[in-house]
């Protein structure tokens, strides 16, 4: 095996294992928020995008409607479309292979692929496929483990699962707070959602913050 291939494989595997392990938090949180084990596993198999999955279970768990949950998850999934735009000309695939490539187009597979750019197009493709498939396998296995574990727990608050979900969201947003502007936006949206929570139906305060982001993005 050439050095480049083994580096790519190492990067992909380490990302797959660490990211896949978060699946345990998702599976547990999904069950804690009222989803069945089957539904939790289907979300990981079919939706397969961490932030979107946490969002839909978070919104429904907070008493929001299915539409609010789907809308919030979908707004977070828009970035996967942008990753697809980046990856498509580099992968050059069609038919069934394109369907599989689309399903594993997520933060991690795109990031590892772009990280291999100095090593050439072949390393980029390998990085994408190894990471995408690796995360998919581990994410789904760990989701099942987490869901079964939470089902066996009973009172999830006694195990801190009610805090694991907001901590997971915080961990997802933290790396994006790269400057003062991003921090102010984050705090403003958090305060807005809290203030609106007792006033409007559950789920709406969260979606409304996306429109704040859109308006600010258009004006900035």
């Amino acid at each position, binding site marked *: 095996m050439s050095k480049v291939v083994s580096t790519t494989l190492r990067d992909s595997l380490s990302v797959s294992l660490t990211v896949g392990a978060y699946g345990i938090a998702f599976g547990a949180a999904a069950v804690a928020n009222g989803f069945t084990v089957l539904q939790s596993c289907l979300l990981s198999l079919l939706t397969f995008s961490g932030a979107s999955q946490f969002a839909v279970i978070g919104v429904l768990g907070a008493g929001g409607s299915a539409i609010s949950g789907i809308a919030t998850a979908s707004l977070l*999934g828009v970035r996967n479309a942008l990753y697809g735009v980046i990856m498509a000309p580099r992968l050059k695939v069609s038919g069934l292979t394109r369907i599989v490539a689309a399903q594993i187009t997520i933060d991690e597979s795109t990031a590892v692929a772009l990280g291999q750019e100095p090593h050439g197009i072949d390393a980029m493709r390998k990085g994408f496929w190894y990471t995408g498939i690796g995360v998919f396998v581990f994410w789904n296995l760990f989701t099942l483990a987490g869901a079964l574990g939470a089902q066996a727990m009973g009172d999830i608050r006694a195990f801190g699962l009610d805090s694991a979900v907001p901590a997971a969201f915080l961990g997802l947003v933290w790396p994006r707070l790269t400057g003062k502007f991003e921090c102010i936006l984050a705090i403003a949206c958090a305060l807005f959602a809290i203030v609106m929570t007792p006033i409007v139906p559950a789920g709406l305060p969260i979606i409304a913050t996306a429109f704040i982001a859109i308006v600010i993005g258009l004006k900035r």
Partner: protein
Amino acid sequence: MSIFWIATIGTSIIAFALKYSGHSVPERWLSHPKIQQINALIPIALLSALVAVQSFSEKSKLMIDQRLVGLSVAVIALLLKAPFPVVVLSAAVSSAVVYRWL
């Protein structure tokens, strides 16, 4: 059909449609700088709102409970540059301790 099934299936269909559309539409459609800009801001807005709502509310009521401790510990863990699983686990453990013994 329960709302959990509707949410599971609806989210999955749209998630795949978004991913597939990225692989299928011409690059210039989505490479507009404004779209890139908005795309960078939306996750910050939604995830921050989710942190707040998940930490300080139950259904439509605001409340402060053991989750505040969990969230504070998560912030400390992130400030100490802890990896994601450590952040989640430390929040869960501290929250569980407060819930059981207070």
